[in-house]
Every structure is written in C-alpha cells, then in structure tokens.
C-alpha cells in the first residue's frame, strides 16, 4: 500500500493549515519530507496567532494585577478569545504593559523601568531589548515589523520630543507583514498623530480626526480594512469610529459610525454599515457587558473592532 503522505504537497498543506501550530511542529518531526514541506510553505510559517493585545493603561500609575492578554488566531473569530498570561520577567508580570503587537509578536514594557521585551506567546520566546538608558522617562511606544529589513522595530518616544529608534536583533521571526508599514503613535492631547514609516524611518505629523479630544477620552488608532482609523470614546459608552480616506490627507477624515453601546441590546446587536468601505455587525463576546462603560481597544485586520468594557 502507498503511504498516505505520497499525496501531492498542496493537499498536505491544506491538511496542515487546519492544525494548530503545535501539531504542525510535531508533524515536522515525523520525517525529512514533512520537515522540508513545512519549512518551505509560507502559509504554514505564518500560522501564528495574529492579533494580540492587552489593556493599555497609559495614565494609571497602578498597574493592574490581573493583566490579561487576548489573542486571536488567523481563522478564529472574535467570539473565541484565547487568553494567555503574560510571561514572567524579573520584576514580575504584573508590571508589564502591552504596547503593541505585530505578526504574532508582542511588544511589552515594564512599567517602572521602561525596559522593553519582545514576546512570542506561541513559542514563548522572550527577548529583553537593550535598555534605552534614560531612567525615569515616560515613553510612548510604537512597534511594528519592517518588511525591508525583515525585522521588528520598536520606537520609543519620550515626552515631548526625545526619540529613540531601536532596531532589534530578532532574526528568528522572519514573517511577512501584510501591507501596512507605518505604525502610528497617538499624541492625542494636542490633537495630532505621529506617523512613523518603518521602512524609511521618517516621522510625519498628521491631524487627528477630532481636534479637541479631552483628557479622559480614550483613543485607539489602527488599520480598518486598508484605512488608517481612529476609535474614540467620548462619553461613557459612546464610541466613534473615524477613517482617513486618503492616507496623510487630514481633510479626508470621515466619521464612519457612532455607536451608543449603552443602548444596544445584548440579544440583538445592531448591524452597522460602514459604507462605502465595508459593513459589519456588532457581536457581543462573553467579556462584553451591557450598561457599562466601554473602551476602544484595537482594530483587527479582518475588519473587526474590539471594544472592551470596564469590567475588565
């Protein structure tokens, strides 16, 4: 009898794409041919959890003791969050803040020391980056993958203008970024956004969609479809989503949708049309509570938007 895996490679890849990353790695150990197959197919290599984030606490001096992290696989939807604990570092996980994620790798910073770690939750690899050597400095972070150098970059911006660009020696995570090569840091207080091009390492200022964002309104910046988008919470439960129609042109900010989450029923979530770009419907996940306050958390690359309630 022929061995089942004499079947054409493209069919084996279809089979493996249905597996979790652990099972794929184990399959790699089965024989030489399985090893070389997995080593060569970019779709298998890319199969790592994809959108990851935790709750940010930019102004709260007291780190949350139960910091949790949500991660979502390529093919799963937002109803099935995978919760993972942050890794243990010398000073304890409690003081870690999730600064950003890209291609399955998270950028974490230690609250007191601003020491930066890159962490791959799938492989559990943890890298401590060289210290910026600026004690007692509050940084804002940007993190992304540079497709030119095939590596990750961490941008640390201290208030008001000190800037360090910190390319990182992370050769083992050679994964391709889909399209966006700019990572955006919000400077919400002055109504401006700072865009940083990871390829050219050039900064650019752009106007925020709302010029007068108050200190207690929360803003989250991300990519919705192919557009730079902003999600803002103005008053409790009221979320606005803006989209920059022409990248870099401040006048092209368009308010896409305004959702009053306190008025939504948990049984019949509203369908929201984001025309002309796309339409989507609100899905309640188990960790969303009605009648509470909501904070914008992140944009997913599948067009989803994640909003977290304050019960977390």
């Amino acid at each position, binding site marked *: 009898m*022929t061995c089942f895996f004499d079947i054409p490679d493209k069919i084996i890849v279809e089979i*493996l794409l249905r*597996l979790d990353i*652990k099972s794929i*790695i*184990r399959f790699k*150990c089965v024989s030489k041919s399985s090893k070389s197959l997995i080593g060569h197919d970019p779709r298998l290599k890319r199969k790592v959890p994809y959108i990851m984030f935790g709750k940010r606490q930019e102004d709260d001096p007291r780190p949350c003791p139960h910091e949790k992290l949500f991660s979502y696989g390529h093919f799963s939807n937002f109803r099935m969050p995978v919760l993972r604990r942050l890794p243990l570092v010398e000073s304890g996980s409690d003081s870690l803040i999730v600064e950003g994620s890209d291609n399955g790798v998270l950028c974490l910073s230690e609250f007191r020391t601003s020491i930066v770690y890159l962490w791959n939750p799938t492989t559990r690899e943890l890298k401590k980056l060289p210290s910026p050597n600026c004690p007692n400095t509050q940084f804002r972070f940007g993190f992304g993958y540079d497709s030119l150098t095939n590596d990750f970059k961490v941008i640390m911006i201290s208030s008001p203008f000190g800037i360090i660009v910190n390319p990182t020696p992370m050769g083992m995570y050679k994964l391709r970024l889909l399209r966006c090569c700019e990572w955006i840091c919000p400077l919400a207080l002055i109504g401006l956004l700072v865009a940083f091009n990871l390829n050219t390492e050039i900064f650019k200022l752009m106007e925020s969609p709302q010029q007068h964002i108050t200190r207690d309104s929360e803003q989250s910046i991300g990519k919705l479809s192919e557009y730079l988008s902003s999600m803002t919470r103005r008053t409790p439960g009221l979320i606005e989503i803006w989209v920059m129609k022409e990248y870099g042109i401040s006048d092209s900010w368009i308010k896409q949708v305004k959702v009053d989450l306190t008025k939504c029923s948990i049984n019949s979530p509203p369908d929201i049309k984001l025309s002309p770009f796309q339409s989507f419907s609100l899905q309640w996940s188990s960790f969303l509570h009605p009648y509470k306050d909501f904070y914008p958390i992140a944009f997913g690359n599948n067009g989803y938007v994640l909003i977290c309630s304050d019960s977390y």
Partner: protein
Amino acid sequence: MSSSSTTTTTTRLLMLKASDGVTFEVEEAVATKLGAINNMVEEEGSEDLICLPNVNGKFLGMVLEWCKKHANNNTNSDKGNDEVNKWWDKEFVMDLDQNTLYHLLMAADYLSGTELVDLLTEKVASMIRGKKVEEIRETFKIKSDFLPGQEEEIRKKNSWAFE
C-alpha cells in the same frame, strides 16, 4: 431553486465515465457540485458523456454518492439541512481507511469538489491534531528517515511544542 420530483422540470442527465470504463448516470445538478464538471458542462454545453481518465469507478462512485446527498439536501431549503449534511458527512468519513482517503482526496481534488476536499482534509487533520510524533508515524506507517540527532535538534528548538 425549488424543484421536487412531482414537478415536470426536466433534469438533464450526464454520463460520467471513469478510468476503468465504469459509467455513471447522474443528474446535472448533482454532478455540477464538482467544479471541474461544472466547468465542462458550461464550456462544452451539449456534451453528455464526460470521460474522467484520472478517477476509477470505485472512488468516482463514492464522490458522486456524496454529491447526491448534498444536492438532495440542499434543494429542501431548510436550516435543518445543515445538520443533516453534517451528520451525513460524519458518517461518510467515519470508517474510511487511509487508502480510500488517499484516493478520494485525489479524486475530489482532481474534480475540484471543494467542499468534499474540505471534509476529507479535516478528517486527516483530526488524525494528526494533538498527537505525538510516534503516534503520527504509527497511524500513517511512516518511518523516520532522519539522521541521528536531526530529530532531536528540531525537538530541542521547539521544545514548547512537545510539552
């Protein structure tokens, strides 16, 4: 798309000829669940005999059996049919041996039966998922052809996957 046996809508019949000469007479609506046949019907139009030199009668028969079930269930447009299809799919793949799986997958792929490929690849995936390396080798009768130390190296590099 509502049609039932009592109406007089004429269903066109196609003849499918397998590599070993076995022929099957199938309703067009059933056979066109296979992308390849759908294309042939659309391109060539009036041709009623379709030769399939890459599939033998045994496996073509099984593929068509699957198509028939799904085509029938889909005409009764009900939500319950999803459940029926799922149940039937489960039955269909439950006792397939690897030789049959191999040939069915080859046939389904050749005939562009996307849904059937999905079903069968998922079946194989379920035989690998969460299994130890040794178990996978045993299931599929694969002999390790690594040189001494090579396998250990992969394990060491990815120790997290073997916990």
